[in-house]
Every structure is written in C-alpha cells, then in structure tokens.
C-alpha cells in the first residue's frame, strides 16, 4: 500500500527534474521533497536512486545519516526543543519534560490528533535567548511552559501563519 498519492509522485518527479543536474544534487533534492511533503517517504527512494544513477541503499544511507530528514509523515507542526548547553544552563531539561508531558509524546512522535511532532535539536543559534525552541520556520526564545501553552493556543485559535 502506497502512502503517497499520484499528485505527490507528480510533484516529486518535477522536483527531481528541477534539481538533478546540480552538482551534489542529493541534499537539495531531499530538502525540496521534505519541504513539499513534510517528510521523505520511503517510496521515493527508488525514484531518486534511478534519477541519480545510484543504488537505493546509497540514497537510504544518506537519508538516515541526517537528523533533519524525516521518514514518517510528521504532524502539522514540527516542534524542536534545543537540548544544547546554553539552553541547559537556563532550564531546558525541565522545559523538555514539561513539553513532553503537555503533548503526551516523546521525541520523534506525533500527537494523536496529528497536530504536533516533537524533535530534539542541538542549538538554534538563539543562545542569547535560551531556552529556545523552533516551531515550523520560527524560532522562539526565553521559553517556559506557560509561554509554550500560549503559543499552542495562538496556533489553534488564530492559525498563526508559520511560514
């Protein structure tokens, strides 16, 4: 059973066509697919492989090497919590526990309603505003569980655009 639609396959073929002649095309290809679909579905591995004249095993090896690439469909919003030292110094370990409890999931999991996926990250470059988290393309600082609740509230109520 395939999880991706014919429309997705069309999209992927376009992306492959667009990027395949770039030197070192694989990462740009993977990024473009994940940007479109939210993840890199296993079904696309052979498509990429044949486009780049590589084996599926090679492509899979690259995908699995990088933390950024997801192989399962994530929730509508990807939330990353910074676990690195500067954020530790201002309580990210507690924040991490609180957020996991609030969402009732662990890292690499998605909430039952399909809204949120939780990922760890090591530094968002926002160490001057630790602890930091990222939701979609936005980075937030000086986070605590109350602010986190407000953020989620805003996401739900106003459908804040997370471009």
């Amino acid at each position, binding site marked *: 059973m395939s999880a991706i639609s014919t429309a997705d396959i069309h999209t992927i073929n376009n992306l492959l066509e667009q990027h395949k002649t770039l*030197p*070192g*095309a*694989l*990462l*740009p290809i*993977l*990024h473009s697919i994940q940007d479109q679909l939210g993840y890199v579905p296993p079904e696309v591995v052979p498509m990429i492989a044949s486009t*780049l004249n590589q084996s599926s095993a090679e492509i899979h*090896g*690259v995908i699995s*090497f*990088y*933390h*950024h*690439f997801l192989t399962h469909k994530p929730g509508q919003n990807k939330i990353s919590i910074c676990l*690195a*030292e*500067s*954020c*530790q*110094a*201002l309580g990210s370990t507690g924040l991490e526990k609180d957020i996991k409890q609030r969402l009732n999931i662990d890292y690499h999991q998605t909430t039952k309603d399909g809204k949120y996926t939780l990922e760890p*990250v*090591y*530094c*968002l*470059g*926002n*160490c*001057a*505003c*630790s602890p*930091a988290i*990222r939701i979609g*393309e*936005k*980075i*937030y*600082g*000086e986070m605590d569980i109350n602010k986190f609740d407000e953020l989620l509230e805003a996401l739900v109520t106003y459908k804040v655009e997370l471009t």
Partner: protein
Amino acid sequence: MNSTCASIANRVFVSLDTSALSKGSEAVAERIQQYLIKQPDMDVTLVRNGTRGMVWLEPLVEFETAQGRIAYGPVKPEDVADIFQQQPFSGLNNHRLCLGLTDNLPWMKKQQRLTFARVGLIDPLDIEDYIRHDGFTGLKNALSQSPQAIVLQVKESGLRGRGGAAFPTGIKWQTVLDTPSEQKYIVCNADEGDSGTFADRMLMEGDPLVLIEGMLIAGLAVGATQGYIYLRSEYPQAHKILNMAINRAEAAGYLGDNICGSGKRFALEVRLGAGAYICGEETSLLESLEGKRGVVRAKPPLPAIEGLFGQPTVVNNVISLASVPIILSRGGEFYRDFGIGRSRGTIPMQLAGNISRPGLLELAFGLSLDELLEDLGGGCKTNRPMRSVQVGGPLGAYLAPEHWSTPIDYEEFAKINAVLGHGGVVVFDDTVDMAVQARFAMEFCVVESCGKCTPCRIGAVRGVEVIDKLTDVHADQGQRQQSLSLLNELCDTMELASLCAMGGMTPIPVRSALKYYPADFGLAPLLVDPRSTHQENTSK
C-alpha cells in the same frame, strides 16, 4: 509636523535578526508601520537592520538624529506611540526606555568592530547602503591586484580561521593558489554547530554582503569561480536573507560572468545542511556538499589540494571570510595591529547561557573573560553565583573562576587545556551539576559521531556508561577509583586515536569538569588522576 530635513526621511531601525524576532521585534515593527500610516505628514522610513548584539535590549528601536543614533529598549508594541510623541528624531529625551546614543553604551564602547562594522548599522539587503558604509572597497582593491598580492595581504593580516582550528587563512589560500586546476572552489562553512555561538548567524543576517564580498575576494585570490555557502538548516532567517542578498548582488553585477566589468567570473549558491553537527568538520562538509553521508575523510589530502569534487578548495568559516574585505580595504597591517601574540585582529565573543546581558561583542584579542562576564554581562540571569563557563562550544573546556582572567588568545587558552573555538561563552550558575555536563559531552558525541572510527563511535558510548558508574550513588570509593581510571584511559584513547576532533576533543569538557569539580562526581579532589590535565588539540 515638519521634518527638519525635507529631502532625507528620518530613519527608525528595528532588527530582523532571529534573536530580536524571538524577543518580539516583528510586532514592534508592525506597530511602528501602523503608527506611521496614521501620521501621513511624518516623513519616516522604517529600516529593518541586523542586531547591535545587545540581545537583552531587544527589541531595540533606534532613531537617527543629528547627534547620532539614539536607542530605546527593550520596546513593547504598546510603547511605540509614546516614544514617537517624545520627538525622538530631535535628540535625547527622558522617556523611560531611552538609553542614550547607541555608540555611547558601555557594550558598544568596549568593542573594536571591524568584521561587524556594519551589522546593525545598515539595511542588510540594500547594496547602496552597503557601499555608503565602505562596502566593496576591498573588492575594488582586490580587482586591481594580482592573486599573489591578495594572498600576501591576508597572510600579512595574521588572520587565523575563526571556525575553531585557528589555522592561518593566508597559508591555506596560498596552497590553493599554488595548486593548478581548471576548477577551484570557495566553500563557506556556515554550519555553526557549536552551542553558545551565533556570530555567523548574526553576521549573515545583519550584513550578508560582506560575506559575499569576502568570498569574491577569496575567489579572485586563488582563481576559483564557484562558491558555496554550506548553511545549517537550523537557520531559516539567515537562509532567506542570504538568498535575497545573492540575488541583489547578481542583479547589481557583483556576482556572475563579469564582476564589476572586470571580465572575472564568480557564482555563488547557498546549500543547506541537514542537522548533523559533524558536517561542520570541513571534510565531512565536503562529503555532504557532494550529496553523500557526512563521513569524515582522512587527511591528507588536504581540501586545499583535493577538496570539493576532488578539486582544490578553500574551506573557511563565515567570520574568516567576512574579515577579508576590511583587510583588503585597510591593509593587512591595519588588521594585524589589533590583538596580542599570535592572535591578531578581532574575534566576536558571544555571551550565552545563564547571563543577565547576553549577546555578541567583537573584541581585539587580549581581554579576559572576567572583564566580560560581570561588568558587561551583569552576572547570572538567575542572580546566583557563577560557577562555571564553557568556552568554545560542546568540545570546549568548562572553566572554573580561577581561569577567567586568562587573556582571550589562542595560545593562552591552549596553556590551560582549553580552546577559544568559535568564541562562544556559556555561563552556568551554582546549581549546575558538572557530572551531568560531562555525561552530556559524551552523549553528544554518541549522537553526532560520524561513525567512521572506533575510539569515537564506541568510546563515547562507553564514556556515558563509565560516567554513570562513577556517579552511581551506591558505588564505594574503590569502585569509583576504578571507574575513574577507566574514564581516564578512555579519554586518552579518544584523544590519541580518533580521526578527527569530534572524538579527539570530547574529552576536553569531560576532563575539565572532573578536574575543577571533582565533588560533583562524588570524588575527593585528590582522587583525580593527574593525567586529566593532559590534552591535545587534534583539530588539525
């Protein structure tokens, strides 16, 4: 209201830097726009600039006046109307958020801003503004010189790589220049993986054109026509700004087939990383750029001889490359006159973690952390005593107060078994458990090891286990002693036998934590193995 100068609009500045945005600068900018729409007779332009580096004052709002820029901060949207009613363009006033002239603030006065000279001053995406502030002067000079003359300037400046390994930039360029090839590359390492660092990001968001100019000069110096910026995927705002800057530079004839009418070519592209710390290591980065797993390559061959796609390649950090334009415009000697010993020029220091006034300061080498942590940094944010600072990212040492007077200098830091790295300083208060920090260092190595060599891949896993045993509350002193020697042996092996500095330097934070904070591991000071002072910088 009549503006005093009819032709030039008054300018007000609000930052678009990631940290400023995360403190709410977007909402302040929006409120200013709304306010201005309702005041059609006010001739005011809102400029979105980089940050001045005083992150604790963000959202900072600056007004251009006859005396200079006057700063207000931290500003909330509801303060906007109030500030505008105080005639902010006519000079100082006693609004409660008015901080005075930006340039007179102690944080600014302490600095020597060479590389960051324009960051926070200009509109990062306005080429005219860039040129008005001496932009492209270095490039103009480089275009009239021979490649060898450019390389000599960089050698003369004494610039050493700001990515961490502190290798002389001019010598690296000389190797690439001397290696004949049809195709050479300039690769900018913008992976900035070290926790506690954000200098590359602030530079790219606040003055992307200076990085582009630096890469152009590097291309002219070594004969490279293609450049790549390898940017970490954790930096979406920098990504957006870099791409816009590249487009504008192309449109203005600074990139492409005929740079400033010289007939010289240089093309530039941003490539995104994918969340792997090891891809900041230059050979792993090159593998990644080639579309492979970021597994570290054995050296030799050096990337300068066989780098990207097997061709001679300059790999330099963002700050190294962005320091080149001022060297070419003011001369190598000008740059070399800053600093001490063999650490010439300036380094952006980044204060992070548990500190009241976090941010970025560009300083000539030679000051000490002491001078930054209390006076400028304002002590711990939690108002508790400072207990430790980690300098130089996750592979850097944890330093106890006795070392905070060490001059900021590569060699002085090496003497105390520490590294300056990329200039990140992460502060911890007295609630920190240094055994937990040491364990984290090993754990981080487990997560981020590229897996190529055993001492790192397996050593780090064993390291976590041994630290757990060592700190097990049920262990007696005999068992502790045993775990401790095991940990020391493990650290020796990682230092001596790892292929790169990931495995080779992970023992640095571990050993410094053990040495200065033995009680956190349940150890009496005497039990610590004297070899824990042994350390070798394996990064080159």
